[in-house]
């Protein structure tokens, strides 16, 4: 049940602490009260109607390299 999906932020409604997000072309509204300062264009992880984390693009790209390194060393 901790299934979460990465979605792209399309629009932020600051007063309502909500955002319109896109997941594989489907658009819906999610709560963003658990995050600080969400910007359109960012990717957020959504679980049960709430965005719980902003995805870190830089770390996503670094991730694979990091793993290869760890497997060599760990």
């Amino acid at each position, binding site marked *: 049940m901790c299934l979460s999906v990465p979605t792209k932020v399309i629009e932020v409604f600051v007063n309502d602490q909500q955002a319109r997000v896109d997941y594989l072309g489907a658009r819906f509204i999610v709560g963003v009260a*658990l995050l600080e300062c969400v910007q359109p264009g960012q990717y957020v992880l959504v679980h*049960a*109607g*709430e965005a*719980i984390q902003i995805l870190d693009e830089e770390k996503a790209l670094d991730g694979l390299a990091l*793993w290869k390194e760890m497997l060599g060393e*760990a």
Partner: protein
Amino acid sequence: MNLLAYRDRDVFKQLFQQIEPDLIRIREKVGRKLRFMEVCGTHSVAFSKSGVRDLMSPYVELISGPGCPVCVTDQSDIDQMIAFASLQDVIVATFGDMMKVPGSHSNLEREKSNGADVRIVKSAYQAIDIAKQHPSRKLVFLGVGFETTAPGVALSLKKAREDKLKNYYVYSAHKLTPPALDTLLMDSTHQLDGFVLPGHVSVIIGRKGWVHLEQLNVPAVIGGFDAIDLLIAIGILAKQLEQTKRSVLNLYPRVVQEEGNLTAQRILAECFTNSPTKWRGFGVLDQSGLLIHSDYADYDAASRVITDKPVSKEIRGCRCGEIVKGKEAPIDCKLFAKVCTPTNPLGPCMVSSEGTCSTYYQYERVHDTVLLR
């Protein structure tokens, strides 16, 4: 952002070739297959669906743990939730996976077909909207979930207070995952060599939420959910077994941070207090439940919405209590895939799409003898 990078076939193959010799060597050294537990139900599905469980089976036995909130919810809680639905002036709002969970005498789906007002919602906020549309009736939201789910429910409590709602109530059966893991580790008959920790619980509690495992010197990794994430998690866990000092490693840094989501942690602390609670299979675990905080007592369904006390009884023959602990596999249950199936589930592990029995029913039946001892 390339979200599919972690599913790349070629990278997967290359990494597997790199990891396989390690697995063979470490299996020889240990003298048996390695036993790792994937704690999260979403991981259980991912390991099976991606084929990684099967691929690893010559070297590693992957055991599914207490990672499905519906499955670890105690029978008495389920009966209480069904009892709310039987009240005339109550609307019950729930996430969809509770609907078919068998209580001692009925389930929510059956209650709904008998006229009870049970609504499936995708978020606790949606339940707030329903409460506003029906001010003369009580709305009881069924709070079932782990650290990942509870903050969203906490926000709904804050919203209810802000909007001065008088008819919104939460029945909190939320659970915290670390106490369950600690219990499994203390069980000397349960040979576990390491843990793939739940990725999205870790989003909330951070790597920090697991560091106590380091004192026990247990290898643990926080992993993602794509095939490459899963492969790496196993590779790193196995490698850690060769080291004298084991640690909790975050292999999912694109999502999980050291400290976790501090806003979510703060809101959880505002709305809930940690308390002992009863788990299916485990019994009562200290500091593992989230009671609604006294500041929000007016919204606590447990004390504000009165029902007849339901009498709970065990489901005959059902092994879910042992399966959630990873002590038995679905195939060990006489009911599995015979009388207990996803269309007619007798136990909760067959109901939720992330329950161990449901996952094994969908993906693991063809080669069950190979995989399950």
